[in-house]
């Protein structure tokens, strides 16, 4: 039996799903993190149940990708039962969605989650009365404490009912529904959606459009607005009958400080810089430990076996890939995601999006676009994945470019490893500065030239909550899994290819061919440019390849400070690594991927050439 969990964003759907199935899914305090459908299996008695966690939505009639996924899912009859999860602290708003769900006539039960928070706010809900009004079973639950969660499965299996409640729509709307149902023989739900212009084609769409135009003329309001108004009215009346509120909760003072005009932007800047610094230091500390351990436990023993040259080359390449992935990238990325998950679960991330809205507008996106950019500092791979949350293609295209330019932790390794070491911390910071300016410039330019519609931000601020450690760890793990599953295999493969190329003497050949260009334009020896090009396969590999090719780890002895600076700058700007390209292909399509690669390639070479002229 297939059962779907449906509800608004941030009502604890994923948490309940997690408790029922035990799968480590993401439990999120940021609206819209579940874009794909997650499903898990469980058994109750002899019944085998497939539980599906549907993305959080506000309406079943909208046009956002999440709304379409859920609508198709429940309309196509894939699902036999539903568990509608409502937030007890915002019952009225949540009933709005439930009233829509009821129109699909699927047997369901209602779960009232967050009962503890409702009690804290002085809200009392008469769940029995709610149950009799809706005509379905209502279970009050506090998912975060696991209270009553065990009752959900038996209730949905044995006591699900089709809700008896229907929204009384405006007379004109009802008349239009009746005529559509009679003429075209469609269901009430289909007629309602046709009137709103969603998900219809052909004759039905045509007659619905005519009817809708008449209604709009008479009401001076759009049909979706009238329908939404009727539903809200109905939800409000139900809420009035079942909710007793003892006192108004005082507005939190923390809340007003975090998002205020004066202190908000300051706190946001401070938080972001603090996170970057903390990641930098904690990451470097862990990296040293891990790389040292790897060196003594894996690489040295392997070398002491003294295998034949080819095997040695390949084996070393694999070990180096693991060392780079797990020893270098992992500490930075994981630390970073812990901080980001903290921000997300505390509810601060939505406030950050709100505060950043006006800046992001200049870059051609809106407030929510700051999330992928921040994530990009960890690893570009999950950041590109999160681009899917942006509403328009225009924003996704712009974000693809900008995220690919954000210095991820691998690039941080290059900046920290060679520029800070050989040219000083000031030079390292100047690289960041140059990159940020380029990102801003690119955003300004793209916002002018990228075609497509703009939408503003309409974003619910999630309530401020104290993050729960197990959720934070689980979510960081979920994110790092994307890095491990997508980026790591590519890293290892790329590393082996590099090892083989090196074994075949390809690097020397390439260095000879590229040398004239490299020396005249970039002022770098041929082998350095070779290292740069192979940095496409893996960012921090550019550094390793450079060390191997130059034959010394003391780069200061073979390259001037200026050359090191140019090398680092180009390798940071250069085409995103192969893993990022892979994800970009999946998320943004081949054309955008190609453009991003070409743009960053040209940008890297141009900036390198300019710096070369200026300082060498």
């Amino acid at each position, binding site marked *: 039996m297939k059962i779907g969990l449906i509800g608004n964003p941030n009502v604890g759907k994923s948490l309940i799903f997690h408790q029922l199935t035990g799968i480590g899914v993401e439990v999120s305090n940021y609206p819209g993190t579940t874009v794909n459908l997650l499903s898990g299996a469980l058994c109750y008695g002899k019944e085998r149940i497939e539980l599906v966690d549907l993305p959080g939505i506000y309406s079943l009639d909208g046009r956002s990708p999440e709304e379409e996924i859920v609508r198709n899912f429940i309309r196509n009859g894939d699902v036999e039962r539903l568990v509608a999860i409502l937030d007890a602290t915002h019952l009225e708003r949540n009933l709005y969605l439930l009233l829509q769900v009821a129109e699909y006539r699927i047997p369901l039960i209602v779960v009232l989650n967050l009962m503890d928070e409702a009690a804290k706010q002085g809200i009392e809900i008469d769940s029995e009365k709610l149950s009799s009004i809706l005509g379905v079973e209502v279970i009050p639950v506090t998912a975060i404490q696991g209270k009553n969660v065990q009752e959900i499965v038996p209730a949905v299996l044995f006591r699900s009912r089709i809700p008896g409640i229907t929204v009384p729509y405006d007379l004109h709307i009802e008349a239009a529904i009746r005529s559509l149902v009679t003429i075209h023989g469609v269901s009430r739900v289909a007629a309602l959606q046709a009137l709103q212009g969603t998900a219809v084609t052909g004759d039905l769409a045509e007659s619905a459009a005519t009817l809708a135009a008449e209604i709009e003329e008479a009401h001076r309001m759009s049909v979706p607005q009238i329908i939404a108004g009727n539903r809200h009215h109905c939800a409000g009346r139900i809420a009035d009958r079942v909710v007793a509120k003892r006192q108004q909760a005082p507005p939190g003072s923390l809340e007003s400080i975090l998002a205020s005009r004066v202190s908000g932007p300051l706190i946001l800047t401070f938080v972001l810089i603090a996170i970057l610094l903390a990641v930098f230091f904690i990451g470097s500390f862990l990296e040293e430990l891990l790389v040292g351990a790897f060196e003594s436990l894996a690489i040295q023993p392997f070398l002491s076996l003294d295998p034949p040259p080819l095997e040695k080359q390949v084996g070393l390449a694999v070990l180096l890939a693991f060392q780079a992935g797990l020893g270098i990238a992992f500490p930075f990325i994981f630390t970073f995601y812990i901080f980001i998950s903290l921000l997300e679960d505390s509810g601060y991330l939505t406030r950050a999006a709100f505060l950043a*809205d*006006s800046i992001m507008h200049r870059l051609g996106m809106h407030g929510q676009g700051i999330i992928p950019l921040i994530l990009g500092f960890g690893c570009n791979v999950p950041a590109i994945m999160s681009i899917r949350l942006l509403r328009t293609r225009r924003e996704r295209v712009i974000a693809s470019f900008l995220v690919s330019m954000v210095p991820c932790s691998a690039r941080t390794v290059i900046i920290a490893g060679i520029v800070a070491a050989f040219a000083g911390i000031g030079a390292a910071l100047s690289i960041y500065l140059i990159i940020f300016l380029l990102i801003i410039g690119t955003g300004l330019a793209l916002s002018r030239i990228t075609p497509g519609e703009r939408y503003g931000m*309409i974003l619910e601020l999630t309530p401020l909550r104290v993050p729960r450690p197990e959720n934070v760890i689980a979510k960081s793990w979920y994110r790092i899994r994307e890095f491990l599953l997508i980026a790591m295999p590519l890293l290892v493969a790329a590393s082996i290819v590099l090892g083989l190329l090196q074994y075949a003497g390809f690097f020397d050949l390439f260095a000879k061919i590229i040398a004239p260009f490299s020396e005249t334009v970039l002022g770098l020896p041929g082998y350095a440019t070779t290292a740069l090009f192979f940095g496409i396969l893996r960012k921090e590999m550019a550094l390793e390849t450079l060390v191997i090719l130059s034959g010394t780890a003391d780069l200061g002895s073979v390259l001037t400070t200026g050359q090191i600076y140019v090398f680092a700058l180009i390798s940071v700007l250069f085409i995103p690594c192969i893993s990022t390209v892979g994800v970009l292909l999946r998320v943004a399509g081949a054309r955008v991927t190609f453009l991003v690669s070409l743009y960053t390639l040209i940008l890297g070479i141009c900036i390198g050439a300019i710096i070369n002229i200026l300082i060498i």
Partner: protein
Amino acid sequence: MRTSAGEDLLEAACILRERKKGMPTAGEVASLLFVSPENVRKEALRLEEGGYLRLINDDILELSEKGIEEGMRIMKKHRVLECFLSEILGMKRSAASEEACILEHAISDETTRRLEGFMTLPRGRGRRLQRGRKRIPALVDFPEGTDLKVLSVLCPGGCERLGDLGILPGEVVRIVHILNGKAVVVRVKGCDIALSPEIASSILVERME
């Protein structure tokens, strides 16, 4: 053949006829048009030939049906033009009225009809501009902490989400935060919703007393 002066006279006579519910005199028309009563009489005689009115006792203007129809037509043109100039183009009302006096004689019926249609479209920018005599304020025009009643949501396309969240005509919302860039957070049905400036400025509101 009608002249501008003739049209002005018919229009003025119509206005006065409505205003005092009786037949206007040449003196009254003259003072409304800022011309001498003599000129009005001269023009009225000319119109009498065209069958638009009858001049009784050389003073009282009795409009014929044809005259009323013509006067109303000019009046309508004047109103449409004045509304267009002031509400949509943003001219001062007095200047708009003066300009409309000149344009009303040249504009065709077809153009007037289309202009009127443009301003009374059920959706689109014309409507909000015409509906209120003065500009209706939007969400972004109020400080933090104000309770506001939503009058209409003009967001064209893609804003069904606002309705789903409860931001609909008639709903009372409170401004929780407003940034310098005019991004706002409003509280609707107990939930805080962040809005971009362009969306917030398309939500027309009035202050709750």
